[in-house]
């Protein structure tokens, strides 16, 4: 089953890296990646509906407009069944704690270690109920 993932980051490098590093996986149909360049854009896409239905959001913190922690808050409020991982260049425990309190399932630091991220994604998708 294809797991649909929304990646939220204002830096174009990030979307480019995700496309490159997940080429094999997307071609095989393991993952379908979607991108939003802001928190507002992400919320709009979630409201409009993404196909296949998104199961996981990977979000940056530092973005113009609403930041990733605010986005996390709004997602958990409006779509509590969705899982969110924070992917950020911030390394402080204050933000890490805030993310955990707001219900993020993981807090990964940039530069993204894609091997580690893929490990986490495999663990996440294998924990999903098969429908």
């Amino acid at each position, binding site marked *: 089953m294809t797991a649909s993932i929304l990646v939220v980051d204002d*830096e174009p*490098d*990030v979307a*480019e*890296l995700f496309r*490159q*590093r997940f*080429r094999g996986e997307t071609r095989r149909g393991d993952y379908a990646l979607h991108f939003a360049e802001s928190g507002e854009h992400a919320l709009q896409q979630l409201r409009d509906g993404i196909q296949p239905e998104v199961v996981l959001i990977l979000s940056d913190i*530092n973005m113009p407009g609403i930041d990733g922690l605010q986005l996390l808050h709004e997602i958990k409020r409006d779509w509590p069944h969705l899982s969110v991982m924070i992917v*950020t*260049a*911030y*390394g*402080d*425990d*204050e*933000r*890490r*704690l805030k993310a*955990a309190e707001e219900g993020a399932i993981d*807090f990964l*630091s*940039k*530069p*993204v*270690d*894609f*091997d*580690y991220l893929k*490990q986490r994604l495999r*663990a996440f998708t294998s924990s999903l109920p098969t429908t």
Partner: protein
Amino acid sequence: MSTASRILVVDDEVDIELLINQQFRHQIRAGEFTFCFARDGEQALTVLGTDGGFDLILLDINMPVMDGLTLLSRLRELHAPMRAIIVSAYSDMSNIRAAMNRGAFDFVTKPIDMADLKATIRKTLDEIENLREIERQRLAAELARSNLSHFLADMSHELRTPLNAIIGLTDVMVTHAGRFGTEKAQEPLARVRGAGIHLLEIINQVLDLSKIEAGKLELIPERVKLLPIIQEVIDTIGPLAERNKNRLTMQGETSLDSLTVDPMRLRQILLNLLSNACKFTKEGEVTLKARKVVNGGEWIELAVSDTGIGMTLEQQAKLFAEFTQADSLTERRFGGTGLGLAISRKLARMMGGDVTVASEPGKGSVFTVRLPGSADG
């Protein structure tokens, strides 16, 4: 002195206002002191309630309505930032002692010796100024600490953001050379990537140590299963073990279930110990062994052993200090900041455990992380 010191005189004697204004007329005119008067403790509290800016209170003990001792107790409850000088008859010594025990700073006896009163007021004001200076310094230090921690958070973000592009993009150019036409540049690109990763490690370690030193590193413990974490770090360290042709194995007791720990920091400690073991061992064995130990409580022991170059006792003694590797030759041969072990030990100690070492030159080393926790909870 830039502003007048404000003194509240609390006394039921009717001529006290006249006496003070007369005796201190020079200081009042020079703007050194200003005086305010209250007839009893209750009036004094009313004045203080509407105007908090007093430095000093001159306090009689025997007054109607509310006496001086009661007022002193109330001032303590209110944490009023001022000092009190008791003004009372020498024959009233037991009350004076009681006032001193309730936090009065000093006393003068009636009839008032004006020279003594002036000296006592000056001394008390100096003391107040000292206390305020200490408080100012405390606030300044607190602000500096808070600025430092914001600075570190922002710096961490600003340093890692470009490294994300540097490491990430060179990595895809190395691993997918065909896609980018970078086949001929493999070797230099791999070196750029390696340098980027090395720089990232240094940045992370310097930032972590600064955070620990500033008291800003916070553990975020959660209930986690230990074996998946061990499996995960073994998977992560695999490529590094292969680089020196080391055999990497793990042994975990199946009785190990879960423990309460900050998983990110535990992973960091294990990765640090394992990467050191892989770096200092060639064509040997690196093993991560996890077990439960009962020794005055339950402990989880995670031992990383290698068959590498090992260390003398002298080298081991310096090992956990910041900015030192076993010696400068080691540093040139193996690289690194020498911060990893210092950080690992500090983290383990923050978790209520420790990291210890046993080693022999030429035979290898065993680093043991010991953490408190019941394995079967």
